[in-house]
């Protein structure tokens, strides 16, 4: 017993010093899904953070930036554990992350208990992270899932002429948000949804879902990420399915478009909308792409949306730090004010925050086309300017729709 106590005491002594701060450095913590099924996306997120810090030469306002990385596996608990270590042990003052929807909700809750640190979302896009019960020190420089698909519902109905669709999506908070964002305009225009298939995250065998898709639909809205998307596409195609697709952003992210195998070719001609478009010609985007390609030759052909979103959040923090000359005193008051008022040109156009610290941003409507080197790219069709979280409604009206879920909106 004595030995254990002694060891513990010795450890405690060494650990005491962990949170000590040096005056000439600013500590950044980044949380991304470096384990589990979203590991590729998490890696992309960290690349984005590194790019932004490199752009500033590793320092801001004369202070060195120290980056510490925390890893989660897309489960809320592990994201909070990673945040705890970064903030409470390593003394991170600014946290970038997390990546996935339910993690974001958990980190928002956690941020309320840590008023001395600021949290900037990475890629997570569940609606209620900022819409309902927001946190004072949680900033989301990234659109939520409903913003991601702005314009897609109208485009599907008006340009593509689809009137009756089926929806296949994963069964958790982020796809609910995204499907809500799609259905709201689509249903208001008079579009019908024949059936919604909410499949558990990580479903591999879609044969039953495919068999249940009604024959009389015009198209299928697919909101599945990573390997789930690939499995669905391959099985749908093999089953002789011929309906056109409409893709929720993650389904046609570069991490899917550059995967191994032929079934993704079925996506050619699929419309989607997203905070990135591969063929965007804006200078901020092409500069970002070249910087990414130069720094990460082993990375994806073009940066995925998670690389961009982590990059934007990190850069926002750095710009705000620059403005306040690295001043993080007084519960980071000056820094937070600067961050809230900041407007800057990101690779995805101009962005600023609303009163809930949620971004207002351009969204890119695009279609999938074959790229130059045999891969696929999303080709920009049009830009939907300055989409806010309430999709153009006033806050009261929008909140009245209620929290997103399996059956919201009803679409009668």
């Amino acid at each position, binding site marked *: 017993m004595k030995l254990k106590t002694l060891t513990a005491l010795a450890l405690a002594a060494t650990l005491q010093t962990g949170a000590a701060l040096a005056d000439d450095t600013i500590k950044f913590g980044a949380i991304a899904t470096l384990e*589990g099924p979203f*590991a*590729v996306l998490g890696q992309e997120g960290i690349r984005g953070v590194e790019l932004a810090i490199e752009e500033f030469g590793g320092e801001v306002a004369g202070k060195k930036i120290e980056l510490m990385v925390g890893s989660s596996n897309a489960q809320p608990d592990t994201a909070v554990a990673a945040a705890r270590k970064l903030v409470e042990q390593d003394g991170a003052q600014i946290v970038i992350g997390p990546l996935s929807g339910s993690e974001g909700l958990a980190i928002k809750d956690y941020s309320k208990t840590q008023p001395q640190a600021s949290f900037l979302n990475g890629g997570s896009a569940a609606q209620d992270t900022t819409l309902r019960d927001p946190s004072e020190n949680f900033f989301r420089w990234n659109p939520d899932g409903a913003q991601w698909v702005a314009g897609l519902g109208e485009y599907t109905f008006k340009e593509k002429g689809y009137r009756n669709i089926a929806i296949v999506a994963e069964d958790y908070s982020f796809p609910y948000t995204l499907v809500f964002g799609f259905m709201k305009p689509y249903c208001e225009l008079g579009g019908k949804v024949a059936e919604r298939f909410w499949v558990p995250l990580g479903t591999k065998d879609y*044969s*039953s879902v495919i068999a*249940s898709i009604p024959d009389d639909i015009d198209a299928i809205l697919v909101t599945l990420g990573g390997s789930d998307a690939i*499995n669905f596409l391959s099985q749908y195609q*093999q*089953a002789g399915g011929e309906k056109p697709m409409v893709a929720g952003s993650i389904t046609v992210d570069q991490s899917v478009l550059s995967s191994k*195998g032929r079934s993704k070719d079925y996506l050619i001609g699929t419309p989607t909308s997203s905070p990135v478009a591969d063929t965007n010609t804006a200078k901020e985007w092409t500069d970002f792409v070249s910087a990414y390609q130069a720094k990460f030759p082993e990375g994806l052909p073009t940066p995925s949306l998670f690389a961009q979103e982590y990059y934007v959040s990190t850069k926002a923090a750095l710009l705000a730090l620059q403005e306040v000359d690295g001043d993080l005193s007084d519960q980071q008051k000056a820094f937070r004010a600067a961050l809230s008022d900041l407007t800057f040109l990101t690779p995805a156009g101009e962005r600023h925050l609303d009163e809930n610290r949620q971004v207002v941003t351009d969204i890119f409507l695009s279609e999938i086309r074959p790229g130059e080197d045999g891969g696929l790219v999303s080709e920009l069709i049009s830009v939907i300017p300055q989409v806010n979280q309430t999709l153009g409604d006033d806050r009261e009206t929008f909140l009245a729709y209620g929290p997103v879920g399996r059956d919201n909106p009803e679409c009668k």
Partner: protein
Amino acid sequence: MKLFLLTILNSLTLAGLYFLVASGFSLVFGLMRSVNLAHGALYLLGGYIGWEVAEFSGSWLIGIAAGAVSMALCGALLQLCVFRFLEGQELRQTLVSIGLSIIVADVMLATWGGQAYQFEVPDFLWGSVKIPLLGLKYPIYRLFVLAAAVLAGILLWLLLNRTRLGKMIRAGVDDRTMLEATGVDIQKIFVVVFALGAGLAGLAGVVGGSALSLSPGEDLRYLLASLVVVIVGGMGSIAGAAYGALLIGFADTFGLAYSPTYGVVYTFLIMIVVLAVRPQGLMGKSS
């Protein structure tokens, strides 16, 4: 009606895949009384190696062979280098296999990353075919999986019932001490059986990876499927594995088709019911 027929076909083909994976698991358990919880890791590793070889050689069939052979070798090595030293200590064998599966899963994630891998199956297996009489279109490849499972089942049955090796294995399952007393080198048989079981897992890795895809987490999925199949069917019985695979295949598929929300739970409910009524499984011998 169309949905019903399609669901039946889907159930049968999924059962085929489950049988391919679980038969090897059941075989190893039947003879050696050790539960190899690294079976799922062997499935996924076999799949990845098969994918690399298929990509390199340009031939899917060579990929299948590579998946099976490489895992058979792995299995033999596992038995020779690890499990042999823990003979008779079933719990420690199981624990070691858990530890190994954790390490292998992590190394695979480091090597092949998190994205999905799909095989390029030969053209004659790609696409769908119109099934006469039923008037339905159905993916050719899934029918191939079913055929492969049936073939594997027949071959296993022949091996166990019509060959000298099979007789020795069955004798070992019934009474290991007696078999040893007759002068048979049981260690050799252990190695062969372990290699066979692991080889089946590797083969299933390529066949299953072509039907769906390979990605992290598949190891656990097929380990669980194998567990449930052999618990329901009865340990160590090839026929039991077949019945178990059918039952679970049907439960999975009908669940997802007719009650998507709780589909995944039904499988485990069936297992619990079977256990409550027949703890040794449908075809298991009571101990």
